[in-house]
């Protein structure tokens, strides 16, 4: 039966437009070694490796687990490769947890990356040869519909864009460090996909992220505080069909419900101390606050407007700067999961939420149809009463 597991090591590279200083092997190895160092372990302590990234076409290397096996210390071991579109980073973290929770593997190294500078991400995100409209082009009409339904004022998107970039200034790994970011700067930046301005969109980043996940009986081997994985959930729905609610996808609602039920959360806004939510375009902060049952329908933008989602608010979201500040696509979901772990381990540095005990890591992908979420805690059995 399922046994508990915890994150005992976290490693990140500096996220940047181009990491010309590192090969693909060097990039993933840098994150992996940092996670091992944090866990006070070596590759010899690892039983299996779980690798995740978005489409292979982004770098032009198919099934990269084959060529990266050596750099990840996987030779002679199992290496498993996950790909679930934009949600892949969180899906990969969850697959790693499953390997441990199943009882089959004690200690798993999980690594995700993207080296967007090797290829043309916009081509890939537009479906390659199929010639689609890209991520922003897909999401913009749904954001417009959210604005229509919720009657949210237009400055909400700008507010999120500024808040996440200010948070990123406290995070040494973040790609964007925009010292002079302001509402006016966001508003005056070029319109890409109405209502999304350039500065309301995520950057293209190179980078890798890694975690060491281990079983309860092995947690003591690592000196730093563990982040217990209290639960995880995934849900998927079709990308398109008549009657689909693209603003509030049912898969997102179901995923949150399943997760909260598993963990024992009845009031997410009160019981979760910090959240890392996949927000590649500014408006997805209020949309997911509602779509994942943290705010009532139509009320999510008010949380943003009132400052509840700021670092010093009552429900801090994306204290690390989020996807809006760093987006190595395949790793972006894992970064949400590991930043949630950072918060409950007390290792979030300058963007630490004081006393955070329970944190949410989240990612979504495809046409807002893939959802992967986990909740981590400083305690194996926190008191939610």
């Amino acid at each position, binding site marked *: *039966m*399922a046994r508990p597991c915890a994150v005992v090591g976290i490693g990140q590279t500096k996220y940047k437009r181009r990491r010309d200083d590192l*090969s*693909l092997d060097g990039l993933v190895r840098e994150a992996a070694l940092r996670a091992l160092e944090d866990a006070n372990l070596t590759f010899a302590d690892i039983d299996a490796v779980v690798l995740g990234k*978005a*489409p*292979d*076409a*982004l770098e*032009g*290397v*198919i*099934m990269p*687990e*084959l*060529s*990266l*096996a*050596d750099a990840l210390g*996987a*030779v*002679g*071991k*199992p*290496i*498993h*490769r*996950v*790909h*679930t*579109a934009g949600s892949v980073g969180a*899906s990969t973290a969850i*697959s790693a947890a*499953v*390997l441990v929770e*199943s*009882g*089959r593997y004690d200690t798993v190294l999980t690594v995700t990356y993207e080296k967007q500078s090797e290829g043309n991400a916009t081509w*890939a995100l537009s*479906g*390659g*040869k*199929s010639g689609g409209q890209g991520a922003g082009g897909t999401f913009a009409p749904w954001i417009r519909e959210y604005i229509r339904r919720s009657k949210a004022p237009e400055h909400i998107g700008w507010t999120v864009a500024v808040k996440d970039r200010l948070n990123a200034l406290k995070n040494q790994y973040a790609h964007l460090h925009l010292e002079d970011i302001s509402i006016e700067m966001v508003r005056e930046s070029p319109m890409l996909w109405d209502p999304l301005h350039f500065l309301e969109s995520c950057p293209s980043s190179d980078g890798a992220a890694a975690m060491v996940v281990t079983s309860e009986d092995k947690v003591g081997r690592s000196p730093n505080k563990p982040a217990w994985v209290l639960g995880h*959930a*995934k*849900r*998927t*729905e*079709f*990308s398109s*069909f008549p009657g689909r609610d693209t603003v509030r*996808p*049912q*898969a997102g609602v*179901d*995923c949150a419900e*399943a997760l909260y039920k598993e963990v024992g959360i009845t009031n997410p806004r009160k019981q979760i101390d910090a959240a890392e939510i996949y927000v590649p375009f500014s408006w997805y902060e209020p949309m997911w606050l509602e779509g994942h049952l943290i705010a009532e329908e139509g009320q999510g933008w008010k949380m943003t407007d009132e400052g509840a989602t700021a670092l010093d608010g009552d429900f801090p979201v994306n204290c690390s700067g989020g996807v809006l500040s760093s987006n190595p696509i395949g790793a972006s979901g894992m970064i949400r999961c590991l930043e949630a772990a950072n918060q409950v381990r007390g290792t979030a540095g300058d963007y630490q939420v004081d006393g955070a005990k329970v944190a949410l890591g989240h990612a979504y992908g*495809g*046409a807002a*149809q893939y959802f992967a979420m986990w909740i981590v805690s400083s305690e194996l059995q926190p008191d939610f009463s």
Partner: protein
Amino acid sequence: MATDRDPNDIAIVGVAQTVAHERFDGPEVVLIMECVNKLLSDANIERSDVGFTIAGSCDYLSGMPFAFVSNVDGMGAWPPVYESHVEMDGAWGLFEAWLRLQMGDIDVAMVVGSGKSSPCDAREVFHLQADPYVVAPLGLDPDAMAGIQARALINAGKATEADIAAVVARSRAAAASNPHAQISGTVTGDELLAEPYDMAPLRAHDVSIKADGAAALLIARRDRALELTDNPVWITGIDHRIESHHAGLRDLTDSVSTRLAAAGVGLADGPIDIAELHVTHAHEELILRDALGLTAATSVNPSGGPLVGDPVMATGLTRIIEVARRIAAGEATRGVGHAASGAALQQNLLCLMEGGA
């Protein structure tokens, strides 16, 4: 039904596969739907009875990033489902599903492998598996690597060209009874050896024929498995291992990762009646037989194996299905399905199965 099985034991309770099409003109999702509909109908269950679904496929075959997203349409995702995807052969999807069911809260999982390689030049595409800095620029694609591996095997005195031809002749003869095969028939070793070399010492017929196809299976925890079928095929172990990507660091005449996986599943703990091996280049069968310690008592690739039809990304899962089908039919008691990935058998997975309630 009385059983000695542990409640955590997991069995294959249904299998499905399409024909290995030389070229399927419809979309990949149609191939998947054919399998999924058959699985659910044979098991007499609803889509909502499946607690976890996982698929394996490769975007690059269709040249369309996120191609796997469309495949969800064939697996069913409304109401929303708990689902995942590996950019690997479906056999690795089975590995994750098997582990997931061991957590205890879900009792049925569906695994799908699918590939439509006809839109691409598979050899050109799989060339991009190679390390992009040093190996790929040399043009070392998997077929070229296979030639090097076969040459090493012959030079080491472990095989002859006649041994390699015998694998092809036997595979084609076995395929006569396989309705999913692309090619079958009687051919002698001498006839095969009279053909010209392609990647010497390999000839064109030593290489699998890439196909469009899909395969799928259902697995269930003990209690549910016994409800769903009278002939459960128990998965007693799955293990997979990888070797160095750099051929110079490997003994190409052996499959060390297969040996490790065999030890991991306890292959040697009993006799193996049947083995289906992911042989995409004929000489690989000789390496794998040796690594698995198989004797003449084991029937190897009774379906003809991938040499008679290679539905890329479903090929490994199909090996497991071919074994499960025969165990369920009572033709074998204990068998192993093998899946491989990468050039020259870099990565290998074994799924050990046995019959009996």
